[in-house]
């Protein structure tokens, strides 16, 4: 379980997060919603260790994450697909995928892990020797998620996966995420601007505004609260 308590983060004089508190249960999908600049990306970056917090605690499976390096947090089973996907263009598709397997798996195991990823994402299998720079937006998203999954994480942090994608592709990816969460007990924290599709697959929802949590509740409750939706989510 991911446990965030009274988390505060600032960039110099700018306070990005104030006293953020919520939990993400194992095997659930938690949607993190809010307007641009609300602090959603900062939240994910703090969990994965890219950003240092000023106060509060983030723990995963009882282990405190603050003070740990990014590489060590990854080794606890955390995988973060950053905003913009972070596909390494100078490498091939297969090299991108392999990169995620290196720290955990032996030579032989890596092959079978890669095969599993290719099964999940057939287009990646077809283009495995292509340079990542030649991929389309949807293919890049598949590559980014596939790469994040290649280390067999137990906590997956997704930052705006629908960004720049056609609605059909978005729907496919969301469906896949939900399937993975259900079938493999993967905990997913999903930051999204596309509120509808996020709420459609999430069990829990956290709405953030100007760095503060407005509400952290079941997704259905949040979706039903029309005032809240108007005010913070724009529909």
């Amino acid at each position, binding site marked *: 379980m991911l446990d965030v308590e009274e988390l505060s983060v600032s960039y110099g004089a700018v306070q990005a997060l104030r006293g953020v508190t919520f939990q993400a249960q194992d095997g659930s999908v938690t949607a993190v919603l809010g307007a641009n600049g609300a602090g959603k990306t900062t939240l994910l970056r703090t969990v994965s260790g*890219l950003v240092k917090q000023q106060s509060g605690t983030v723990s995963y499976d009882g282990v405190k994450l603050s003070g740990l390096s990014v590489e060590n947090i990854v080794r606890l089973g955390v995988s973060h697909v950053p905003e913009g996907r972070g596909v390494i263009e*100078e490498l091939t598709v297969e090299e991108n995928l392999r990169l995620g397997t290196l720290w955990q798996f032996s030579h032989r195991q890596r092959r079978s892990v890669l095969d599993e990823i290719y099964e999940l994402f057939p287009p990646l299998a077809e283009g495995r020797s292509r340079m990542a720079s030649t991929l389309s937006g949807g293919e890049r998203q598949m590559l980014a998620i596939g790469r994040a999954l290649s280390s067999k994480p137990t906590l997956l942090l997704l930052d705006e996966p629908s960004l720049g994608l056609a609605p059909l592709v978005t729907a496919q990816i969301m469906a896949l995420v939900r399937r993975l969460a259900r079938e493999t007990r993967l905990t997913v924290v999903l930051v999204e601007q596309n509120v509808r599709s996020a709420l459609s697959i999430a069990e829990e929802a956290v709405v953030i505004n100007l760095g503060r949590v407005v509400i952290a509740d079941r997704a259905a409750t949040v979706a039903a609260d029309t005032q809240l939706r108007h005010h913070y989510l724009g529909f």
Partner: protein
Amino acid sequence: MSLFVNLTLNGITNGMIFAAVALGLVFIWRATHIVNFGQGSMAMFTTYLAVTLLDRHLNYWLAFAAALVAGLVMGAVIETILIRPLAGKPALNPVIVTLGLFILLEGMAGSIFGIGSRSFPPAFSQAGLTFGHTKVAFSHFDVFILIAVVALMLGTLALFRATSLGLRMRAAAFAPEVARLLGVRVGRILTLGWALAAVAGSLAGLLVAPTVSFSPNFMDLVLVYAFTAAVLGGLDSPVGALVGGLVTGLALSYVGGYLGSSLEPLGALAILMVVLSARPEGLFSRPAPRRV
């Protein structure tokens, strides 16, 4: 005509040496976006270590290997102590620190090993080989230089393309933050990059030393020419280091042969200025888009 042949052969062997040092510069640039102006001095220092061991009658190849290992250690130590603390700070700082390293090592070498120039024994005969009736300016030692540098290049290629470590190094160079998110220990990779670059430099030092009067600044010009070669080839391209090295070596050999050796540095300057005016990213690298 034979002058031309000799100059060409000379240019090729020199060029290979420049390529070796340039390769080290490229490693470090790719990993940390720093030009290591201390590369020449580091190589000089490890070569001095080798000659000290040779003075004590150690086996030649053991001393050779010791110098390479010393380079490995030196590169790792310098990256950890001097370079890592500067990450995230203004980009001119590492330039100045490596320049400081440059003269610090020269001063230390002069203090420890004495300033007089001396000679460094070559691994193989430096007498020119004879083909038929003509003697050419190409010796067994020059063959050794060629083989050693080619081996270095092939080894580098194999490392980067065919090993997991190489994959990690490339990822750490292209996208350090993403690499960290994938569990790559980027800090250790940087240290390793510097260590390997230093080994390349040490090798070059051992190859140059027998051909010049050996004193604490014997690598100064080599560094400068290697820098030219690296810029010519593209600071982030290992292939560019090789091609740049050969082109620079040949060009300077002709300049030295036909116009006089004092004008060689000026020749290097001219090459540099032409490259930087016409194609600043070098021959083999991809121009990066300007982020505003």
